[in-house]
């Protein structure tokens, strides 16, 4: 946290400047921006030049950079911290991440097995 005045422990205190949302500074925005540029440029470079011979390695690296950039955006642009709104934004975020994880893995898992176990077209026609 760069803002020492963030009303973390008393969300109902009278403060006229905002609603408990944290602020950034010029420095923090620029830091977030440059980190994002780097974290975007590297995966694009890796894919466009084919720096990784193995596509699965490249996919893993690209995904790691995306995860890192999402965290950078959350901290420097969306000003996420465990203290904003008395911790409720973080709770909502964690719930969403769990929900997203279940939705994505569940869909991919179930649909992959549906496809794998589906009767081939020819076999169905022979019956």
């Amino acid at each position, binding site marked *: 946290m760069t803002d020492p005045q963030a009303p973390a422990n008393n969300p109902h205190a009278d403060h006229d400047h*905002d*609603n408990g*949302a944290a602020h950034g500074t*010029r420095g923090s925005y620029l830091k977030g921006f440059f980190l994002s540029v780097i974290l*975007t440029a590297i995966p694009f470079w890796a*894919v466009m030049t084919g720096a990784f011979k193995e596509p699965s390695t490249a996919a893993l690296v690209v995904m790691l950079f995306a995860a890192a950039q999402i965290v950078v955006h959350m901290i420097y642009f969306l000003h996420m911290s465990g203290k904003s709104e008395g911790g409720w*934004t973080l709770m909502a975020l964690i719930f969403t991440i769990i929900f997203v994880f279940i939705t*994505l893995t569940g869909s991919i898992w179930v649909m992959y097995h549906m496809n794998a176990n589906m009767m081939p077209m020819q076999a169905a026609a022979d019956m």
Partner: protein
Amino acid sequence: MSAVPVTKDGEPVSFYEIDEHEHPEGNSTMLGFWMYLMSDCLIFAVLFAAYAVLGNSYAGGPSPKEIFELPLVAVNTAMLLFSSITYGFAMLSMEGGRQRIMQMWLVFTGLFGLAFLSIEMYEFATLIHEGAGPTRSAFLSSFFTLVGTHGLHVTMGLIWLVTLMVQVQKHGLIPANKRRLLCLSMFWHFLDVIWIGVFTFVYLMGTLR
């Protein structure tokens, strides 16, 4: 049989608040808006899941590798990233009470957003012209739905941005306008976060396949 419980003074005990206590205007807006963003996140999660499931079904049509132009996507990503930082600067000007400079940054944000949308429209038009429209295969249907939904969000954000600029011009930086600008700030940065997912999972990993 049972008497109403009373305190020592003979007043009935209240187990809940009888009188509505005060709710300052806008006190919970930011948290409420965050809840909206999280639910919007679920919409995108479902669209990503649909793309993950259908993304390999080409139906004899073009594969991602054949139709995606990564340099164009890189420029698009840069546009959205620039619009994020200019919006951040607008928020800093807002906190400093510098209305004119804030409006200038918001204009830049809007122009970058417009550039992003124009490039996306160009990309979509090219794809449809090449016969790779949303009706061609399940892969392209889910692609157009996912990326199009994001584009629709950006369009809404732009309309919202212009509306707020007019509001600020008319009424100045009153608390209500500041609150609205902070909400749009979260919305705009949120769309940038979603775009990270789009360019990674759709474009970059599509090209790798």
